[in-house]
């Protein structure tokens, strides 16, 4: 177990180190102009190390340095109680909730749609092109309207946000599942055919198992898409709670550092969610060596 851990951790650590290095370099490069203009006075009189120090600790940097972001994260998590809107974890929880609800609904919808499409020619021909078209409708553009309409239908709380998350979530799942459910080799389908297996049996015993390798990658993409959807949906709910609202207000108040800490948090949340899906995948597709 140990060496395996090292085998996995080492590359991640190495790449992470490289990224941090690049990040610092980027911070110096991108912030230099602003620092020279706004921070380093009198103009022109500064040493290189002063410049670097200034770029890495600006009030309103183009790209905040990693330690600024980490410090901000740390303070937001440690300095406030968990249920305070100033604590980032509070917003993580809000976003995670709508993401998860949307993800579960989206996955179910995706699988059901795929199963229906695979089994019904009418739906395959009539629906599939429109499902594709539905995804080319920019969500953010209609999210406000969708939220208003959902609101007038009596949905409130997580439901509207989860709906948007679901809308983004179900598509990759549907596409992958349609492909997966159609992936059984001809001879395998014919075998089931000779048994006069019912559609139901063929679905559970052949189509679904052979679709699983397609399903899980799509779930990983789906959960990420759901997270994006949940955050997008947080904007037109009026900048209330959630990581999306944090990003918005951070950007609005010009607080670059808090944008980046919300960004890092959302990425971490995404990573945790995909890792959870990957864990389920390992469990389900587990085969003895």
């Amino acid at each position: 177990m140990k060496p395996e851990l090292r085998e996995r951790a080492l590359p991640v650590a190495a790449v992470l180190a490289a990224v941090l290095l690049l990040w610092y370099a980027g911070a110096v490069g991108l912030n230099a102009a602003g620092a020279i203009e706004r921070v380093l006075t009198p103009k022109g009189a500064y040493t290189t190390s002063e410049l670097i120090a200034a770029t890495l600790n600006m009030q309103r940097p183009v790209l905040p340095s990693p330690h600024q972001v980490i410090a901000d994260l740390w303070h937001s998590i440690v300095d406030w109680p968990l249920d305070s809107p100033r604590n980032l974890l509070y917003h993580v929880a809000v976003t995670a909730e709508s993401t998860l609800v949307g993800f579960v609904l989206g996955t179910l919808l995706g699988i059901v749609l795929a199963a229906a499409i695979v089994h019904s020619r009418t739906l395959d021909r009539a629906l599939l092109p429109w499902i594709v078209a539905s995804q080319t409708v920019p969500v953010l553009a209609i999210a406000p309207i969708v939220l208003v309409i959902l609101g007038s239908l009596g949905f409130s709380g997580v439901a509207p946000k989860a709906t948007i998350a679901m809308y983004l979530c179900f598509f990759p799942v549907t596409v992958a599942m349609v492909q997966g459910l159609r992936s059984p080799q001809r001879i395998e389908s014919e075998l089931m055919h000779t048994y006069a297996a019912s559609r139901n049996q063929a679905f559970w015993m052949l189509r679904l198992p052979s679709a699983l390798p397609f399903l899980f990658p799509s779930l990983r993409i789906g959960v990420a898409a759901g997270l994006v959807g949940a955050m997008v949906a947080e904007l037109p709910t009026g900048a209330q709670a959630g990581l999306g609202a944090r990003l918005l207000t951070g950007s609005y108040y010009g607080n670059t550092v808090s944008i980046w800490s919300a960004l890092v948090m959302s990425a971490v949340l995404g990573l945790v969610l995909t890792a959870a899906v990957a864990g389920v995948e390992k469990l389900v597709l587990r085969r003895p060596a």
Partner: protein
Amino acid sequence: MNAPDRLQGLPSSAAAPTIAVPAADVAVDVRRASVVYPSADAPVRALHEVDLAIGQGEFVSLIGPSGCGKTTLLRVIADLEPISAGEVLVNGMTPREARLARAYGYVFQSPALFPWRTVLANVMLPLQIQGRTKAQCEAIAREQLERVGLTGFERKYPWQLSGGMQQRVSIARALGFEPKLLMMDEPFGALDEITRDRLNEQLQQLWQRERRTVVFVTHSIAEAVYLSTRIVVMSPRPGRILKVIRSTLPDERTLGLRDTPEFMALAHEVREGLAAGHGADDEA
């Protein structure tokens, strides 16, 4: 012109005129069936006006050069391939109805095991589909696996088996659910002679005991002669029946029979038919 009478050698009507066959006695009735595979260049005539009637309880072997349409004929009977012309009846029904009535079992030319199922679970599959209880399924599956000499491999996955072992799993799977009509496409092709002999003997005994109808594709002349009540020799391009040979061997058979002159004469006849089929090929 050269095509033999489609009822030639049918046991219950060896002497009777063709029309006299009572429908109840005919398990499979293929009438002037043709199959054409469309293709970008020239369409392939895989079967051409094939006529064949197989009685209940018969053991019919199909033999012929590679690519002559044996698999296609089996697939037509099993409702896996539509015919371009002609008519096919299975137990008096269309192949489709027969399939839905779960009238037959089919062993494919390649094993077609599900990689996510263990060996045992693969054999249990058709039984589960028929809705038997889990315990029943498992008992039958274990028994069948023992028959093909795979006890101890129940919990392995298909990819952990050798080619011949996979083929044996596939045979066990088809035998397990005791179909009235059994179709087998080169089931013993990947087996060594000893194992093959053993399974041949078992299949022969099974047929003895239960008189199921069997349609059997093989490349081994000895196997065909040993097992069959009738041997159908086919020739390719277009795929058609060249000759139907009625076995003169007694129904009760042992492996020892293979050294008898009667056996050898039959084998010789089949070989000649085959050679003729190859000749037809070369002409084309």
